[in-house]
C-alpha cells in the first residue's frame, strides 16, 4: 500500500516537473542566448552555457529599443488608468442603476470583446487618419481606452453586483445622489478591484500587438511588441539580440505577475466569466 502510494506520488511529481520544464525552457534559452556575444551564436550550441557572463547583447538590444520601451510605458499607463476608471463608473451604473435595456448593453459590450480584432482594423485606421491620430501614440492610447471598456466594465460590474443594494438604498434615504453614493459607498469598497483591473489592463495593453502594429508601425514610435518583431525581421537573424529584446520586453509584465500574482489570477478568472 505505501509502496503503491510512493509510486503514485513520485509519478505525480515527475509529470509536474516535466511540465514545469516545458514552461521554463523558452525563458531559459532566452537568457542563455541573450548572454552570449554574436560570434558565439550558433544554433548547434543553443544548449551550451555562455563562455563568460557577457551582457553586451542586452546592452545592444536596449540601445536599439529603449525608446520603444518608453513608448510602451507612455501608452500603457494612461490607457490602463482611463479604461479602469471608465470601467468603474460603467460597472457602477450597470450594477446599481440598471435601466431598461442596460442588460442588453452590457451583453453587447462583452460580446464585442470576444470577437476578433481584425473585424474593426480598417475603419479604425480610417477614423484615426481622419482625426489626425494615425501613427501617433495618442491614437493608440485612445484605441486601447475604447477597446478596454468592455472588459473593465464587466469586471467592475461583477464586483459591484455583490455590494448589497441595502447600502445604496440607505444612502439614498440619507440624501445622497448618484455621485454621492459613488464617492461615499462604492469607491471606498473598490480598492482591490481597481488593483485587479489595473493590473489586468496594464498587462493586456503592454502585450498587445495587432493594433500596435497597424496603428504605430513606424519603428521609432512603436511599442516594445512591435520592436521585437522588427528585430526578428532583420536579414541575418541576430538571435542573441532577439532573445535579449524579448526578455527586456517581458520584464515589466513578469515582474507584475510575480509580485501581484493574486490580483492577476482574479482578473483572469473574472474576465473569462468563470470566476
Amino acid at each position, binding site marked *: 500500500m505505501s509502496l503503491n502510494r510512493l509510486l503514485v506520488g513520485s509519478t505525480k511529481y515527475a509529470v509536474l516537473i516535466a511540465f514545469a520544464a516545458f*514552461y521554463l525552457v523558452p525563458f531559459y534559452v532566452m537568457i542563455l542566448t541573450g548572454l552570449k556575444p554574436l560570434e558565439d551564436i550558433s544554433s548547434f550550441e543553443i544548449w551550451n552555457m555562455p563562455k563568460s557572463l557577457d551582457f553586451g547583447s542586452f546592452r545592444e538590444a536596449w540601445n536599439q529599443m529603449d525608446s520603444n520601451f518608453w513608448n510602451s510605458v507612455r501608452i500603457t499607463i494612461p490607457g490602463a488608468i482611463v479604461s479602469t476608471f471608465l470601467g468603474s463608473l460603467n460597472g457602477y451604473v450597470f450594477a446599481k442603476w440598471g435601466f431598461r435595456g442596460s442588460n442588453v448593453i452590457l451583453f453587447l459590450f462583452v*460580446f464585442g470583446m470576444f470577437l476578433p480584432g481584425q473585424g474593426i482594423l480598417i475603419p479604425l485606421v480610417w477614423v484615426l487618419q481622419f482625426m489626425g491620430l494615425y501613427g501617433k501614440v495618442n491614437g493608440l492610447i485612445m484605441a486601447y481606452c475604447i477597446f478596454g471598456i468592455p472588459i473593465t466594465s464587466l469586471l467592475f460590474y461583477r464586483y459591484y453586483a455583490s455590494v448589497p443594494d441595502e447600502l445604496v438604498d440607505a444612502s439614498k434615504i440619507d440624501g445622497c445622489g448618484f455621485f454621492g453614493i459613488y464617492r461615499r459607498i462604492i469607491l471606498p469598497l473598490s480598492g482591490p478591484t481597481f488593483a485587479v483591473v489595473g493590473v489586468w489592463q496594464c498587462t493586456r495593453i503592454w502585450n498587445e500587438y495587432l493594433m500596435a502594429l497597424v496603428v504605430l*508601425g513606424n519603428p521609432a514610435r512603436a511599442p516594445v511588441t512591435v520592436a521585437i518583431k522588427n528585430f526578428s525581421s532583420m536579414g541575418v537573424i541576430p538571435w542573441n539580440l532577439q532573445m535579449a529584446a524579448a526578455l527586456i520586453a517581458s520584464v515589466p*509584465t513578469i515582474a507584475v505577475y510575480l509580485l501581484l500574482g493574486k490580483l492577476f489570477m482574479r482578473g483572469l478568472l473574472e474576465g*473569462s466569466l468563470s470566476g
Partner: protein
Amino acid sequence: MHSELSARAKSLPALLPKWLRDDRRIAILVLAPSIIAVAVFIYIFMGWTLYISVSNWDRPALDLSFAGLKNWQRLVNDPRFHIDLRNLVLFAVGYMSQCIVIGFLLAALLNDRIRGEVFFRTVFLMPFAVSAVVSGTAWRWLQVPSAGINLLIANLGFENFRPLWYMHPKLGMLAITIMGAWQFSGFVMALYLAGLRAIPDELREAAVIDGAGTVALYRHVFIPMLRPVTFTAIVLTGAGSIGNFEIPSIIGTGPGFATDTLGFYMFEQTFRSSRYGLGAAVATFMLFLSIPVVLPYLISVLREEKE
C-alpha cells in the same frame, strides 16, 4: 422633510434642466460616452468592414463604390484562403486539445494541495504574462529544425527523429500549436483548478464513502461538474484559434503558407497590398466564424448569472 427637499433643490444649479435632476438620468448620461464609443468603434466598425468587403476599394486611394460580391469571389477562389482554412482546422484541433488536456491534467495533479503547489502554479501560468510575440520569438529559435530541440532529441538517442517543426510544408501549423498552448494551457489550468476548488468537499466525501476510487471520482463527479469550465475553455481557445495572428507574424507563413492564418492573411492583404476589399472580406469571414462560437456561451453564462 419639506425644508430638506427644498434645500436639495437649491443645491442643484437652477439652470439645470429638470430632467437632469433625476439620478437615473445622470446614470444614463455617465454611461452614454461608453455606449457611443463601443457602438461606433466595435459595432459600426464591423458593419463598415462588411460594407468595405463589397466595395471596389482595392488600392491605396479610397473607393467605396459598390462592387457586389467581387471580393468574396476572389477570396473563395484564392488557394491561400483554402490553405488557411485547413490551417485553422489543424490549429484549432491541436491547440484546443493541448490546452484542455494539459490544463485539466495539471489542475487535477495540483488539486490535492500538494507540496510546491504555489511554485508549480506560478511556473505554469508565467508564459501567459508575456506577449504572444515573445512566445513566437523564443520558440522559433527552439524549433530550428537543424538544431534546437532536435539536438536534445538526438541526445536522448532518437537520432532519426528530426521533425521539421514550423518548416514542415504540410503540418507546420501543428508546431505553432505548441507555441500557443505553451502560453494558454496554464490559463486553462487556472480555470480548472478554480472549478475543482469550488466543488464542495461533502460531495467528494460522499462519493468516497460510496466506494468511488480516484478514477471513478473524476469520471462521475468532477468531470460532469466541471462542464461549465470546459465550455469556457472551448470557447476561449476556439475564439483564440480564429483570431490567431501574432505567431505567423513573427515566424512567417512557412513553406507553401503552411503556417499562415486568416488573421495574418487579412493583415497582409489589407496593410501590405492595399487590397482593402479583400482584407475586409477575410475580416468579415472571421467575424462570421466567431459568432456561433461565442454567442451560445455568453447567452448561457448570462442566463445562469441572473438565476
